[in-house]
């Protein structure tokens, strides 16, 4: 052992090293139980680069991946050569892979409450330090509200819950729900926590600022539906699955962290991260969202809320700072695209802070209903048509959300985990529960975690999705035929 070690360090200076690089191979054991091997062509490779190569076989995102070797968690900057010198790394050795959390998302159990509870302006910290100032933080939550109060997930929920009547395999709609719901819940937290009152709470933060055009369209559709069908939201929020989501801040946080802009925002403003991390605030927000009337009102009044803040003494300053501190770090296009108060503000981070002309500007420039402009139009249609459109849209939305989950290995894994862990999830689906009621064996199987573990494979999800898509096409065809034949 000792001899080996000396030999390899000695070889270092002789260029290629003792082992033939072509033969150098490492084995990996992932915490999910999978095992695989990777060749190491270059010992100068850093652990960070290795992680990127490991992302695909492991299914863990490089940022969250932890590589453990000889009892140590490896640092991204270490090279394999370092490991050879320090710990005697040899070809054929095994490393462990674990999914951690993203850097900078501290899980301080106390800080969240503190940040959420602190009324604006009580913080003694010096202002101007991003994240350290109470005012800035408090309004920090509110900016995303104004900018795209899309309630990312909140509305996805609606989407899927509107579907049950005509979706045989609605299970999928609900799957989509998981991801974005949670995200919305968490994002909303920032807002709720900061304002502490429903008016200010607005809707959830802009979860997908400009991320993808598809998601934006999706969000828009979902917003419309939420307004058209407030009860649906409540249904979903009351489901056992959501209950368990609310109890799982870790999952929510991870979901949030899959959004690069939010991640960035939290990195730059740790205090915001704390708000988002506080399970109590999370729950509070969920509760708020359970009341559909309140929720609807909140969403409608979010622009107004922004205007109100502005008219308060010092309010605009708070907003401005918040904008420069937080929104400024987000993609400016995103803010514009989603188009409510903060985004509409022409002031970019270098706006003159003392400008007085902006008082009331939000409400002038963007009258209240602006964000919902599309809503009433949809609602105005023939009511049958409207319903059909709704379910159609919601199904599409659910399908897309599911796709998004399938495309994101980490999100998928979390979703899968959640579904496996919940013995009531499948039963929430009317069709499944009817089947189970008639078939005790199936009922029993559904309650068995092993069964669920085997059931919820990627293949299963994909085939279900395919089925749902086919069904949608099928119904569309019928609908078109009906219309063309004038029936």
């Amino acid at each position, binding site marked *: *052992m*000792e001899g080996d*070690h000396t030999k390899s360090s000695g070889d270092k200076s002789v260029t290629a090293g003792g082992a033939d690089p072509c033969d150098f191979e490492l*084995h990996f*054991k992932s*915490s999910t139980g999978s095992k695989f091997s990777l060749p190491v062509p270059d010992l100068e490779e850093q652990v960070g680069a290795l992680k990127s190569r490991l992302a695909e076989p492991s299914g863990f995102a490089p940022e969250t991946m*932890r590589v*453990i*070797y*000889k*009892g*140590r*968690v490896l640092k991204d900057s270490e090279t394999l050569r370092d490991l050879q010198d*320090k*710990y*005697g790394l*040899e070809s*054929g*050795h*095994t*490393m*462990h892979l*674990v*999914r*951690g*959390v993203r*850097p900078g*998302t*501290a*899980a301080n*159990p106390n800080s969240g409450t503190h940040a959420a509870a602190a009324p604006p302006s009580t913080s003694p910290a010096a202002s101007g330090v991003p994240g350290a100032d109470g005012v800035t933080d408090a309004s920090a939550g509110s900016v995303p509200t104004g900018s795209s109060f899309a309630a990312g997930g909140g509305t996805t929920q609606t989407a899927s819950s509107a579907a049950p009547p005509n979706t045989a395999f609605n299970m999928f709609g609900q799957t989509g729900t998981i991801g974005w719901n949670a995200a919305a819940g968490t994002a909303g937290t920032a807002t709720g926590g900061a304002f502490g009152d429903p008016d200010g709470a607005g809707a959830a933060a802009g979860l997908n600022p400009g991320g993808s055009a598809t998601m934006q369209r999706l969000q828009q559709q979902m917003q419309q539906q939420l307004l058209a069908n407030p009860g649906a939201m409540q249904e979903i929020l009351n489901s056992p699955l959501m209950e368990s989501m609310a109890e799982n801040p*870790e999952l929510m946080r991870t979901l949030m962290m899959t959004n690069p802009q939010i991640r960035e925002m939290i990195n730059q403003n740790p205090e915001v991260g704390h708000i988002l991390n506080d399970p109590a605030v999370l729950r509070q927000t969920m509760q708020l969202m359970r009341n559909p009337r309140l929720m609807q009102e909140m969403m409608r009044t979010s622009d107004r809320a922004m205007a109100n803040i502005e008219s308060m003494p010092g309010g605009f300053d708070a907003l401005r700072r918040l904008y420069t501190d937080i929104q400024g770090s987000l993609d400016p296009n995103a803010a514009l695209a989603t188009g409510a108060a903060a985004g509409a503000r022409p002031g970019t981070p270098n706006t003159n802070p003392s400008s007085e002309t902006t008082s009331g500007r939000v409400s002038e420039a963007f009258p209240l209903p602006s964000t919902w402009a599309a809503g009433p139009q949809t609602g105005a249609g023939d009511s049958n048509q409207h319903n059909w459109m709704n379910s159609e849209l919601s199904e599409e939305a659910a399908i897309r959300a599911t796709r998004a989950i399938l495309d994101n290995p980490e999100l998928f894994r979390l979703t899968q985990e959640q579904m496996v862990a919940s013995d009531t999830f499948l039963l929430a689906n009317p069709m499944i529960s009817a089947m189970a009621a008639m078939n005790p064996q199936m009922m029993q199987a559904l309650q068995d975690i092993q069964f669920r573990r085997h059931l919820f494979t990627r293949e299963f999800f994909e085939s279900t999705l395919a089925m749902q898509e086919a069904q949608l096409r099928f119904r569309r065809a019928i609908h078109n035929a009906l219309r063309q034949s004038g029936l």
Partner: protein
Amino acid sequence: MMAGNSSRAALLLTRQLRDLNKSSADGFSAGLVSEDDPFRWAVTILGPPETPFEGGLFRAELVFPTDYPMSPPRMKFLPPIPWHPNVYRNGEVCISILHPPGDDPHGYEMAGERWSPVHTVESILLSVISMLASPNDESPANIDAAKEWREQPEAYRKRVRIIVRQTLEEA
């Protein structure tokens, strides 16, 4: 005599480490704190699946006596320390197989459950992993954790989950 014992122990530990790195046991990873001292090991225990510790990366140090394997090593978790009935608040692990056979300060353990030279680092760490999964609250090292584990399992679980997250941030 002492030197002989010590080098035998060093040899044994070095061999055990090499074997571990070849086969790589599930659930933990082990190396030396410093390459020139085989008596101090750095280990990372992966929180066992389907327990509240799942997903955590618990770092610990094992310190072996020079007369190993006649006497057991001591094991101490490094912060963030697992919240667990059998782990002292300072991280010291209280598990029967790490107690010398003659010495039973708690009077609870059968001689057969205590240290014996047949134990290896692997068997020790596997025992610790199984301890994480199923605490023994007969002789708790952390009385509050034991009480909570018994009486408020949900609160216990939540507290453990917070620590799990912390272990991932330290990394």
